[in-house]
């Protein structure tokens, strides 16, 4: 069993102790960590876009906030997690470049964060940590042993949430 489970862009994975889930280089993308503290089942998704309805002819549900979250929950339940116990920690949704033109491109991070929060609310999952926004990249690691989220940035180092 791999100790560190890597989650790519537009990808989702589940894990059990002593495993950790890792995703690198979150910009406007959002990393979503779900956790059942009793069974210690963890899950992570790395979404790129807010809404699958706006996409044309798409196949990968892990790419969108509205389709990745239900799929991640489903995979965690299959591993023994109980939905009513799930809690969430989210990070990312940054705006890496700032300038006036083409507002849609620039706001995608913010739209991603809001879509993730809305979908989690709809699923009845409380957000314990919301580290979104800003203009910097993040690499996140989620420990299934204690449910701690390690957020690394280039300028501010690591914070444990």
């Amino acid at each position, binding site marked *: 069993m791999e100790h560190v489970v890597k989650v*790519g*862009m*537009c*990808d989702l994975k589940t894990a059990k102790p002593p495993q950790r889930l890792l995703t*690198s*280089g*979150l*910009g*406007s*993308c959002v990393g979503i960590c779900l956790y059942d503290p009793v069974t210690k089942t963890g899950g992570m998704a790395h979404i*790129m*876009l807010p809404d699958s309805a*706006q*996409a*044309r*002819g*798409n*196949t*990968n549900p892990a*790419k969108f906030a509205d389709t990745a979250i239900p799929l991640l929950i489903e995979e965690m339940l299959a591993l023994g997690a109980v939905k009513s116990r799930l809690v969430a920690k989210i990070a990312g949704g*940054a705006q*890496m*470049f*700032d*300038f006036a*033109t*083409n507002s849609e*491109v*620039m706001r*995608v*991070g913010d739209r991603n964060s809001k879509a993730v929060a809305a979908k989690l609310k709809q699923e009845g999952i409380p957000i314990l940590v919301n580290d979104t926004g800003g*203009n*910097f*990249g*993040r*690499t996140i690691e989620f420990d299934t042993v204690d449910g701690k989220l390690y957020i690394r940035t*280039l300028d501010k180092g690591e914070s444990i949430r």
Partner: protein
Amino acid sequence: MADEFLQLSPVQKDILKEVSNIGAGSGATALAHLLRRKITMTVPGVRVLPLEEVATVTGGADHKVVGIFQRVEGPAPCSILFFLSIDSAMHLVDMLLNRALGTTRFIDKLNMSALEEMGNIVSGSFLNALGGFTGLKFVPSVPSVAIDMAGAMLNSVLYHYGQVGDHALIIDTEFAEQDRHLAGNFFLFPDPGSLTKILSALGVSNHGACC
């Protein structure tokens, strides 16, 4: 539409490569004039990659780089990302300001605007050449500079591809100064849909008589 990149024929790839080669040559010449140094460049690569693999081309999602980003509007919108290592960016500022190499120790606001200007000149030359061949107008935005994880910067670009499919088209060239004091990677990402327009303007669309 989603498959437009995957349907690229070898001939279409070669033509894209050739046009990019002329564009990059023009960009390298502009950079050489600006820095008064010899600039070499590699033959551009034209690659179609799954979205999650794009970061590997830039040395990994975590890799710390200086990124100069420009949106290009017009009939065939694109994004441009120019990646430099931190050392290269500092050397570049020294060259631009005519100082001894090693004078610049960190990238501040003033240095950033020097880098933006350099990005403007290289991309402007590249796009002029591309515009000359295709007859299409390419209008670049003011550049924006960030120093951060390569993967995080790529998010802003890849999101366009994500809306229509799971692959990205990358045209990339490495520019380097003769003595390798600086080296950078210039990436052009035509938006989904733009490729068809560029190819048909070049007379090699899938529906055309060619090939």
